[in-house]
């Protein structure tokens, strides 16, 4: 099965990098799902949970503080202002 290569980047670090089966991102106009082989796509993300199905089928979630999502040729890049575990306080700095 083809995987989507997901990279979650914040100004400070690479939060996440790896293949995922699917991705649900908090786009500005609602949640948007991305599967492997998705068409080239650019969207604005708001603050919220970024869910994905990891390579071994496990559902995982991280929280992002808004940013931009780019999907192109099997690669999804999330440029987030900040990121952390769900429920964790906003990362200090990024977008204050």
């Amino acid at each position, binding site marked *: 099965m083809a995987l989507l290569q997901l990279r979650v*980047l*914040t*100004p400070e670090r*690479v939060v996440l990098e790896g293949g995922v089966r699917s991705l649900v991102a908090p786009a500005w106009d609602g949640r948007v799902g991305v599967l492997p082989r998705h068409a*080239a796509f*650019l969207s*604005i993300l708001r603050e919220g949970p970024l869910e994905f199905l990891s390579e071994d089928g496990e559902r995982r979630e991280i929280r992002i503080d808004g940013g*931009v999502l780019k999907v192109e040729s099997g690669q999804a890049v999330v440029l987030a*202002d900040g990121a952390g575990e769900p429920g964790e306080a906003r990362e200090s*700095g990024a977008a204050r």
Partner: protein
Amino acid sequence: MAGSRDVLRRIKSVRSTRKITRTMELVATSKLKRAMDRVAAARPYAEAAEDLVRGLNAPSLAQDHALLRQPAETKRAAVLLLTANRGFCGAFNSNLIREAQRCLAKLEEEGAETELHVAGKKGLAYFRFRGRAIASATTGIGDDPSPGDAEALVGPLRERFAAGELDTVAMVSAEFRSAMSTPPRTTDVLPVAPAPGRRSGDAFILSPSAGEIVARLLPAYVRATVYGALAENAAGEQGARRAAMKSATDNAGDILDNLTRSYNRARQAQITQEIAEIVGGAAALE
């Protein structure tokens, strides 16, 4: 043995200085490692953001976006100088200060009214002493800068640029080539002028629109640029300090060698003299 006692005292003092410089060298080495990791960790975001801005940029956007506006002439310019809070790092700070002065002079020569924003106590102390007006001063950024620090520095400038109060914002910071080489450089932070490259905007499904995505991205991009510079500056400072303290330690070692030599020579001369006196005295008794 008056002379040799002075030499002994100097040996003691140089030895304790060497102990201090060696410790500072070790501290800088360990901080350098962390600072370099930070520089490396900041790079993927900066590269991806630049790639996106470049891909989306189009002449039509420049008219709608305040941060892309390329003023016909530069009337008001801001220079943001990043220096260290502490010294003992060789020519690191003075190189940055010199570059800032060069940058200010160049802008003024072009007829622009300049204002200077300084981060770091060293740059601040210099320009305060010289009596230059400083538009804003920041000294709270330590060894581990955050994107929040970058935002605090560049946020007000970005807003004023967007409002048309500034025509350009330049930043003077250290380029971290390696721990041994950290030359100063000037970066044009605003207006954002993406290097011409592959335009990819057309191939994408854009939601909501290229313009709005660029508007969302640009402030973050500017912030990432400044954050990257802060991170490089912090790493450069530690690298420069390590090099400076290394040569100070080596130097202290050389001085110690020389002092020890002259101490031994004085001691030997004294012994020789005492023997000569004894021999002379014995000869006189015969």
